[in-house]
């Protein structure tokens, strides 16, 4: 593994609230450059809330979040995109009334290098051939899997260093899930990306990621190498109270 052990993201004592309801309790996490890290845990454990807190969608929170050793806790969502953080929201959210091409152009909203944007558009189309034939179709008319790819490609258009993905495989067919994870791995190598994934499908996530954090009721439960956790009795117990 070509890990340089350089921390790209560090979360210290993060707590977060929705209105009066506390969701996260003193979460600690770090992500090294080039890693694929997943966050797993039962429903309602606060997995997505971690991503939303990093990305400035949750106002009421304490603790600190460091990106490249720089405090980003007080930054607004759109400022984080310019800093190099990309986000793929849960539920394959595209701009339905905009064409696929316009969706991708919006992904490059923070960039001004027109030539490079054109080149990246070409490369992404080569990487996701599904995009090509629908370029001028309204994104809302695509299938679920295709929308997920538009959503991912749109996030990549901002040239992020760190990509946050919120349950990217939700509602996809088993083959699509596997394909998507393989694409994610390829992207990591191709673009030197660092990826933090929240995933419902714990087996798939642990199988595919370098490291994982297991969450329970808004607290850190376990942390470790992906496939080691896969066979950890405590993880198995957390899910269904037994083997997968």
């Amino acid at each position: 593994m070509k890990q340089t052990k350089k921390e790209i993201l560090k979360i210290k004592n993060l707590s977060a609230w929705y209105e009066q309801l506390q969701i996260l309790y003193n979460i600690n996490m770090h992500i090294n450059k080039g890693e694929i890290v997943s966050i797993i845990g039962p429903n309602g454990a606060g997995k997505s809330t971690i991503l939303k807190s990093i990305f400035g969608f949750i106002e009421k929170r304490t603790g600190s979040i460091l990106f490249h050793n720089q405090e980003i806790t007080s930054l607004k969502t759109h400022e984080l995109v310019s800093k190099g953080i990309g986000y793929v929201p849960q539920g394959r959210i595209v701009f339905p009334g905009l064409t696929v091409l316009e969706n991708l152009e919006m992904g490059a909203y923070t960039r001004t290098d027109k030539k490079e944007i054109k080149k990246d558009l070409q490369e992404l189309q080569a990487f996701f051939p599904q995009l090509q034939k629908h370029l001028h179709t309204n994104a809302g008319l695509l299938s679920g899997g295709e929308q997920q790819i538009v959503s991912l490609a749109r996030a990549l258009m901002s040239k992020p260093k760190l990509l946050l993905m919120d349950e990217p495989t939700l509602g996809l067919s088993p083959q699509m899930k596997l394909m998507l994870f393989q694409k994610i791995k390829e992207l990591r190598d191709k673009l030197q990306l660092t990826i933090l994934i929240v995933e419902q499908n714990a087996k798939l996530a642990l199988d595919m990621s370098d490291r994982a954090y297991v969450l329970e009721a808004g607290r850190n439960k376990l942390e470790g190498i992906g496939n080691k956790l896969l066979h950890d009795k405590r993880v198995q117990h957390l899910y269904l109270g037994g083997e997968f």
Partner: protein
Amino acid sequence: MSLIAQVLANAIIAGGIYAVIAIGYSLIYSVLKFINFAHGEIVMIGAFIGWTVAVHWHQHLFIATLAAMICCGLLGFLIEKIVYKPFRKKNKLYVLLTAIALSFLLQGIAIVLFGAKVRTFSTGNIIKGHEVFGAVITTTQFIIITVSLIFVFMILLFIKKTKTGKAIRAVAENQDTAAAVGINVDRIISIIFILSSMLAAVSGILIGYEQNINPTMGTMIGIKAFTAAVVGGIGSVPGAFLGGYLIGFAENFGILFVPAGYKDAISFVILLIMLYVKPTGILGKKTEEEVRV
């Protein structure tokens, strides 16, 4: 024949003005999902600024229009920042009541600044119109038709083609996702208010060249343009364009069949029928985009 041609000409003139104002309602609704009931008052303020510069200070009409656009743009920007923004995340009813209060406030300010007197742009000379297919159209009316069409198409092109225009559509579709691609949503909202208010200023001056202006003129014109926006499909800019001309045509052709005194009622009857038959409007989206004022 000449009667029909005249009515057609009047319909196009009125429709163009309604369209320009209706686009403002729809743009703001598309992003913030509320009806800016003070929009008609911006039209009125625009008319008075234009009158002050053109008639009172004897400046060229072009300068007067520019001045009105800049002042109203600034006014729209400030209104959003100071009056609407604090309520943005609250119940929509708050913003609605605030908008109604604001329109009274703006009317009051206009009465204080410009007096309650009726003002007029025209110089008093009666100008002979041109005859087109049997209809008599004055030069000013030609200008009204052309200017309103130019502004409508400019805004349609802007929304469709430019980066900022696409960002406006993205913010209208999903604010969180728009922020997630790096769009500064607050800035886009400011741009929308500035644009809508500038359009309102232009239409205020266009109206001033057809009718007298007074501090309460914004109410009726505002409600009619709002009707046009709803009929066309609130939130849709092409819909507002369509709705504007539709209301203009319905009003002017309507008085061929009902007494002219009912002219104002025609658009409201259309609004009622529309809300009953197709609440999303002609070009409105099928989803939850129904009018919720």
